[in-house]
């Protein structure tokens, strides 16, 4: 069984992001990077599946040179090899553009299962995995917590609202987007990192894959969230003020 996990490198959770001079992207120098959280769960699910049923786990990641460190982390945790699709314009590509890059790299592998995280912690489109399934022509399910092997394919557990779950049967090959929190993540080890050095990382450029970038959506401008703190003093007698407060909580803030 060959499992592909598409992973993304995103700014570290505690990173202080600043907007760069173009106003269209963040300043990347001095930024620390990490593996996107739900992708880490996708990788964990793939590794556990492989540990139970055997096979191979291949990670695919698109992005510039810096992505190499995140790829190595995935290899250190137990992925067998990696494909790095080299591109410097990740921020300008829309979800379709990125999915096209990944699909081109994945197609040659003929995988049985393709996993991605549900969405990225930076842009948060939540579309790449779904579009990827479409491009690869695979059946697809999203918001997955667990994958289990069944008779003719796999059974997946989806998380719905309010503590409801749904179990679905899927044939293989299939593509799934994985939700955070379904597993306990493993920590990276020194031995893993050392062993990762000898694992294969194939680098492919967008040109080699024959994928041109024709974005349907472009980023115009990015902005920091504005901090808003407005204090209102309610005047009048205590009774009047309390009545006004209830009014506001009911109709303005809608918490009552």
């Amino acid at each position, binding site marked *: 069984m060959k499992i592909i996990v598409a992973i993304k490198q995103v700014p570290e*959770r505690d990173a202080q992001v600043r907007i760069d001079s173009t106003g269209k992207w963040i300043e990347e120098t001095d930024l620390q990077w990490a593996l996107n*959280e739900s992708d880490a769960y996708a990788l964990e699910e793939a590794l556990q599946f492989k540990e139970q049923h055997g096979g191979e786990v291949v990670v695919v990641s698109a992005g510039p040179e810096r992505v190499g460190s995140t790829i190595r982390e995935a290899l250190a945790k137990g992925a067998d090899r990696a494909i790095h699709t080299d591109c410097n314009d990740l921020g300008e590509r829309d979800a379709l553009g990125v999915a096209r890059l990944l699909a081109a790299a994945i197609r040659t592998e003929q995988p049985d299962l393709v996993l991605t995280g549900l969405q990225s912690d930076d842009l948060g489109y939540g579309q790449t995995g779904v579009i990827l399934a479409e491009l690869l022509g695979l059946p697809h399910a999203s918001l997955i917590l667990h994958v289990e092997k069944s008779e003719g394919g796999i059974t997946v557990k989806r998380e719905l609202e309010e503590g409801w779950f749904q179990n679905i049967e899927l044939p293989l090959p299939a593509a799934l987007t994985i939700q955070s929190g379904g597993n*306990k993540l*493993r*920590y*990276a*080890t*020194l031995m*893993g990192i*050392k062993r990762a050095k000898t694992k294969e990382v194939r680098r492919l450029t967008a040109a080699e894959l024959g994928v041109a970038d024709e974005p349907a959506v472009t980023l115009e401008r990015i902005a920091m969230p504005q901090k808003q703190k407005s204090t209102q003093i309610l005047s009048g007698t205590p009774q009047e003020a309390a009545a006004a407060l209830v009014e506001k909580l009911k109709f303005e803030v809608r918490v009552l």
Partner: protein
Amino acid sequence: MVQMPLTLAEPAHFSVVERLAFAVLGVASGALFWRRFGPILHKILESKRDPGFRLFPLGRRIRDFTWEVLCQAKVIRERPLPGLAHAFVFWGFCAFALVTINHCAVGLGVGFLSSEGWFSRLYFYLAGAFAIACAVGILGLFVRRFLVRPRWLGEKLSWESGFIAFLIFFLMVTYLAAFFVPAASHAAALLWWLHTLTLLVFLPIIPHTKHLHLVLSPATVFLSRGGFSDIPPLAGDEDFGLVAGADLTRLVSLQAYSCVECGRCTEHCPAANTGKILNPKEIILGLRGYLNEFGPKSAEPLLSKHIELEAPFQCTTCGACEFQCPVGIEHLPILVGLRRGAVNTGTWEDDHGAKLFLALERGSNALGMQATERDKFIQKQDFPIFDGTQEYCLWLGCMGAYDPKGREIVADFARVMTYLGTTFGVLRKEKCTGDPVRRLGNDLLFQQLTEANLDALAQNNVKKIVSICPHCVRTIQEDWKEYGLPPEVEHHSEFMARHLSRLPKPAQQETIVFHDPCYLGRYRDVYEEPRNIIKGAGHLVEAPRSRERSFCCGAGGGLAFLSEETGERVSHVRASELAGTGAQIVGTACPFCNSMLRDALTATGTSAPQLLDIAQLTARALPRLDSGNATSDVRESN
């Protein structure tokens, strides 16, 4: 020359048969000794070389050897009575060396100390005096082991120890008796033979029992790494710590065979005393058992048959064992080495451990909080950002930046610095020093954190660091050295003690019991500074176990982040001991101790003493400025 009443009687002459018999028995005894000792020596020498080991400079080694072996200082200081008894036996043995050589030489007809010459006479008297002391000493040790039976010596009575004690006693008696029989008599010959036979029985027993320490421990003390908890660097791409026999180094193997099973380590171990599986003595004996069974080239995992996987992970790295051990065994590099082996290869699976590691892989602090929480705290306290113009970089540490009580301590220490007019600033961004992951054996994370921090400090041109956390101080000063040159660093107790004369004293004088943090005391040798600060703030009370013998709070070695599952809580034991002194305040100097004791003291009952850091004790007496209201702010915000 003064006529001396007693002379040592020696047999007149030896027949050829006697000489032959002596020679044969002597060779047989030596051969039996070697048959057991040879393989042990071989196992030690066959072990891997110690990475980073340097024999020179010798000065330190000679000093330790003189103090710990020749003077028996550690043996005596930590257990005065049995220690002294042991010292007399040891000195007796030393004094006897020459006598014994001569004794054997006599048997071969080449005795060189004649009982007539004044030097030999004097020497025999001296040896006689030591023989008496030695006999009394061994008798005392015998009584202790077989009648008093302290539980540290183990449940089982060791009959071989009794037999050895008897042999030593008999050696002394047969020597002394020879002063009271006529020279060249049958009695003299009988005594000579009894003494000799005892010696020849004694020799081959040595390597079979813990008395092997007679031969090995002087070397162990001389060759020890020396630094406290001196964790060796990993050598090459295939070294992940102590995974299997092939990872045992010569020093570790030598130490494993040197243990004299005295149980001092266990007596002081917080884990062993609260019902955990870990027992430091059994760790060392477990390694010995492993070496005996599998040898130093084996691929068999160390953490299986002879040592349980959980055992090293229950260690608080308090260092009481390493500090106590009289034969120079260094437990911490071994315990941390075993953890390294399990963590660096991913063998150790623990939910809390994995959570800590993931928090530090993805974030900046061991508490798993957002770094923005630190930013908010800095803003709220109005701490200046370090820009290279200030004297000190105030290192907040995970506890100081994210823990509510730790924040109070930092805020109060900042007030003290401000009052003294010392300039300081905090780093805009700071990562965990890596203390918990270093002790838990995660070298990958430790290296990443160290390098990121060293980088940030170099970029900001930091020259001097001060911190409220002894764990940060130790890790920055000693452990970071593996990856670069850290700036100068000191603990806030050292800083405040230096400026004590300029700090105001509080009006009310309460009784304060001081809890020595392991990482400040045993690790850094700082005992007086916090005490001087406390003496300025109230009446100092000493806990039953204090200074070098202080009992851990249970937080060290990353254990603050794991769950303490078996047995009694270490912190509760310590908290009741501190509360039992009747002091009104428990004074601490470490935010981890503070955090552990905080809950534990509440659990001890309603009249629990107040818990305050030395920074808080000092800041209490500072005049309240309008702008210096920072402390109360933090309290409200929690």
